[in-house]
């Protein structure tokens, strides 16, 4: 096989043309719409109770108490965060919720068991504490959900990097003008640029709204954590785009490419979860994709989130190389 070295100038041209074309062709607009609806809906679902709480405080006390609101957010967010991060099992989360319920309905100070129970379940692990107490908890919760959900959404943008033009033979106008490697990597890069821009729009919108409307977190803390969350989301999209790129190079039909991308991304996660009920080690199946690493992008320890970034890059390189090999050697 004769693998050609990519040309930076051509990759730049192709990626810019491709990201503009993504908007013109409509697939970029569809993705933009779906990503915005998903991102803003997540934000809405998480911010709305806070806004309602603020409205109630305003009504009852004549003012809002940011500290009380922050504490409420932490109380609500703790079990969900711990479950998403894998710090506690669903059983423990339910027991914790029941213990909190008992402490609210009875005079728990009178029973030593109640105190012990509360302490047992209310203990924060360092990661949860970092996300909920040391960083704006509401934004942390939004990022955690987005990190989980955006891999499903990204395939709407990335599924058709080359498959459509293979099917329509449109690539033939390009093949005598540039290397196959430039087309493949250029379109991948163009998709990454477009995806990053959309993630930026979502994060800026949510952060701006959170800052202006709720005013429960200091602006600097909000901006800093938003920047970290944006980077985490942008980096996480890259290996998933690379998976879609590989699938796109394997099949000629854009529709089949979309279906396979969806099935692959969701199937790995569902397969790992479902499989682990029957056979514990099956949970490691999720490491076929970055599912097992991606929460670490919000880890307090730099070593952990750098490790997650590295893992994303390794996945990206692997999928890209496989896809490129196929694209370079196949009939077009």
């Amino acid at each position, binding site marked *: 096989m*004769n693998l*050609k070295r990519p040309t930076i100038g*051509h990759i730049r*041209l*192709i990626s810019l*043309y491709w990201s503009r*074309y993504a908007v*013109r*062709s*409509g697939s970029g607009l569809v993705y933009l719409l779906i990503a915005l609806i998903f991102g803003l809906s997540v934000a809405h679902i998480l911010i709305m109770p806070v806004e309602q709480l603020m409205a109630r405080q305003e009504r009852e006390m004549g003012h809002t108490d940011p500290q009380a609101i922050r504490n409420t957010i932490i109380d609500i967010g703790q079990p969900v965060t711990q479950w998403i991060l894998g710090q506690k099992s669903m059983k423990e989360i339910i027991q914790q919720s029941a213990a909190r319920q008992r402490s609210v309905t009875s005079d728990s100070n009178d029973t030593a068991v109640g105190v012990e129970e509360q302490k047992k379940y209310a203990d924060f692990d360092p990661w949860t504490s970092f996300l909920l107490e040391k960083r704006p908890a509401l934004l942390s919760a939004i990022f955690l959900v987005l990190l989980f959900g955006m891999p499903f959404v990204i395939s709407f943008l990335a599924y058709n990097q080359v498959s459509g033009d293979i099917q*329509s*033979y*449109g690539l*033939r*106008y*390009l*093949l*005598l*003008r*540039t*290397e196959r490697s430039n087309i493949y990597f250029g379109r991948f890069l163009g998709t990454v640029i477009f995806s990053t821009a959309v993630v930026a729009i979502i994060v800026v919108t949510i952060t701006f709204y959170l800052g202006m409307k709720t005013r429960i977190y200091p602006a600097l803390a909000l901006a800093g954590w938003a920047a970290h969350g944006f980077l985490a989301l942008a980096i996480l999209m890259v290996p998933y785009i690379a998976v879609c790129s590989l699938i796109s190079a394997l099949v000629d039909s854009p529709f089949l490419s979309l279906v396979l991308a969806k099935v692959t991304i969701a199937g790995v996660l569902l397969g790992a979860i479902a499989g682990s009920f029957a056979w514990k080690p099956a949970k490691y199946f999720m490491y076929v994709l970055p599912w097992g690493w991606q929460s670490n992008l919000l880890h307090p320890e730099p070593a952990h989130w750098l490790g997650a970034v590295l893992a994303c890059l390794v996945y990206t390189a692997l999928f890209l190389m496989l896809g490129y090999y196929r694209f370079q*050697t196949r*009939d*077009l």
Partner: protein
Amino acid sequence: MKHVVSIKGLSKRFGQIQALNDVSFEVSSHSIFGLLGPNGAGKTTLFSIVADFLKADTGTVEVLGINTRYISRLRGRMSILPQDAQFQRNVPILDQLVFFRLLAGRTKQQAQEEVIHSLDMVGLQSYAKRRVGSLSHGMVKRLGIAQAFLGHPEVILLDEPTAGLDPAGARQIRDLIKQLRQRATVMVSSHNLAEIQELCDYVAILNHGALVLAGSVDEITRADREYNLCLSRPLQNSELERLSSIEGVRNIKMLSHPGANHGKGSAEYLVTLNLSADHVNQDAVIGAILRGVLDMGVTPRKLVEGRSLESHFLEVTGGQSGDSVILDHAE
């Protein structure tokens, strides 16, 4: 003569179908080379392998002395009008073609000037800002030709360049291709035999993936010392015998030509003449035949030297004209 394209032992199989089978030929510099064949003969496959869209199972292709495995070395020197390749429907044609020229290292302004010139050549300048989706089939075909003419490629492959064009459009493209002979080597595939005969210096005929005939159009059509004579009425057997007795005539037969004008007012009847190869003065023989015909009270309407490409095509492909070959110009 210098060979610009050299194809040796090319084979390609798609599953059970042998699309090309050990095809070899060469194309001379600054010639127009026609590739003929019925549907499924392997013309598009051959072009696609030459342009490295498809990988050959066996064999080699060299263009301008470069093996097409290293196709990038031919960048800017070879272009193609691919058959059935679609442009991006939602992007203005100017943007798409300018992008191609940017890849060739042109500045945006240079690229725009070249594109406008190329679109002007095919009569699409006023559509430059339109999206491809809004163009008719014929216009898209012309756009494909415009992109193939961009820059100054030394080798141009045109896969059915006039298919789907109206007669005036087809004539315009044929004239453009003729002009290209000055500066480029052109390979054209077509179903239109008359078009190939008009345009090309050399021709290769493919059938079921195999090369069945290759050579210069002149050599092919003028072999056999054959003439076709169109007459105002059919000749009787006795009249045919009288003409056969003229010295130098080997064979003479009356036949109906598929393109003859039967039933359209001015009927024409075709006679095929074969002259003896050892007779030196063919003009004298032809003169004697024409005088004989006039003496019979028959008006000769047309005399054509050589067999048509069409008859060769039908012969070597086993008469597979069917619906896949156009026997006359569409115009």
